[in-house]
């Protein structure tokens, strides 16, 4: 099996804070790979690095065999046509309606006729169950609907790789179920490769083929969902079981409570 994305020895810092400290990740073609970890571990940053919206301090990221940070602007944009990304906020264009949002990339990158674009957009919207919402503006959509529209837009050009940034957070159970089903279906039916970054443990483990768990800038565990569930390390158990205290402490570092209450400096 070939790898669509290969990340090796990735180092990245932001405001002198180490986000990645020698991370190695491979994303096999045709699979759903999840990258999980507590909030603030840099999961979204990882996707931005893969999309070359950020530059790594050290290390390299190969996408489809190309070092994405060494590409010229034109080559980078050409490669990005093979990538789709679902942003956490959806990132829908607020001045365009649902139909035009999904049609955006088709109008920009193809010379298809309006009839053909209309057919493609309606098929994508049908896939996410929102063909009837084609004339609505983004402000008229619920959070779950906006994310489904953003998903339809992300796959408008039938990309090889699709990246999901926290696709399930803040969703009600019905929307979450719909999105989980869509992610699996898209991956299998269209032969895409998917990367999900998420901290929704149960749902993500239910659809992922392979999982990386990150904390403190490093990979603390990896394997199939079953292997992750059976991992006995304290860090992994705290994250998977959602324990409030453990290697990731409940309390933000501070001096002793009695000293603080008495005002001792």
């Amino acid at each position, binding site marked *: 099996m070939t790898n669509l994305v290969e990340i090796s020895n990735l180092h990245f810092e932001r405001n002198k804070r180490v986000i990645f400290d020698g991370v190695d990740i491979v994303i096999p073609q045709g699979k759903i790979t999840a990258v999980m970890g507590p909030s603030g571990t840099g999961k979204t940053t990882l996707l931005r690095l893969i*999309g070359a919206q950020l530059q790594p301090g050290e290390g390299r990221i190969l996408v489809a065999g190309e070092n994405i940070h060494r590409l010229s602007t034109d080559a980078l944009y050409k490669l990005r046509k093979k990538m789709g*990304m679902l*942003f956490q906020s959806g*990132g*829908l264009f607020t001045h365009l309606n649902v139909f035009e949002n999904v049609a*955006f*990339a088709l109008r920009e990158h193809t010379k298809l006729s309006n009839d053909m674009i209309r057919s493609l957009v309606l098929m994508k919207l049908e896939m996410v169950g929102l063909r009837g919402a084609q004339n609505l503006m983004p402000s008229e959509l619920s959070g779950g609907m906006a994310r489904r529209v953003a998903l339809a*837009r992300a796959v408008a050009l039938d990309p090889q790789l699709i990246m999901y940034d926290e696709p399930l957070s803040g969703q009600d159970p019905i929307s979450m179920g719909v999105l989980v089903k869509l992610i699996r279906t898209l991956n299998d039916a269209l032969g895409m490769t998917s990367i999900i970054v998420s901290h929704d443990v149960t749902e993500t483990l239910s659809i992922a083929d392979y999982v990386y768990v990150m904390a403190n800038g490093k990979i603390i565990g990896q394997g199939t969902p079953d292997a992750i569930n059976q991992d006995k390390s304290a860090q992994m158990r705290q994250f998977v079981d959602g324990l409030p205290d453990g290697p990731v402490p409940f309390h933000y570092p501070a001096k002793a409570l009695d000293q603080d209450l008495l005002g001792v400096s």
Partner: protein
Amino acid sequence: MSMDVAALGRWGIDSLRELGRAGLLLLRVVFRLPDFKKGFPLVMQQVYAEGVLSLLIIVVSGLFIGMVVALQGYHTLVKFGAAQQLGPLVALSVTRELGPVVTALLFAGRAGSAVTAEIGLMKATEQLSSMEMMAVDPLRRVIAPRLWGGFISMPLLAIIFNTVAIYGAYLVGVKWLGLDAGAFWSNMQTSVDFHLDVINGLIKSVVFGLVIVWIALYQGYYAEPTSAGIANATTRTVVYSSLATLGLDFVLTAMMIGGW
């Protein structure tokens, strides 16, 4: 003392870095022209958003400013028995200075702030990022049309301002205060030089337009993506644009009077 010097040095370096970043943004926008077929409608949309939607404030302000200048000018000129020179006074004041400068200040407040807020919000809601990931360059698709939209709109707005202001002066001077219409217009025609007064005024407005939209775009594009960040960026756009307009007006006037 050394801390103060260090702080001053840091401020200087930060300011220069910001200026360099703004310069690079302008260069990247100017040299990444959208292709004509896709770019033209986008530029026209921005001419509408920045120009047409600013028309009301420009027309109303132009009318009142023309009327006030005529009223004030008349009461001063009449003391010297030179009331017939009201036409040239208004026309020269408006075409040389008031037209380009006041239009620029209004344009900064109306269109500049709107551009900053729009770009800042697009950034905060990840619209620019999602555009990049769809392999569409936001500089070409979003930023460049706004720059050219402002570049085209400003001189047109200044022409409209000038015309309305002179008409306002005509209403006050001729229709209200009873000056002779023929003297009002003919004295104006004799005194106003098309190149030195009208064209130079329009050159000013082109420069002001470019600088205002540049500041607005830079502030929006690099705004901190929070509500407070966007509010600060919008305020900075209006303040910096106004100061830049007034400062540049002096420089351009000095150059024009010096015969460049």
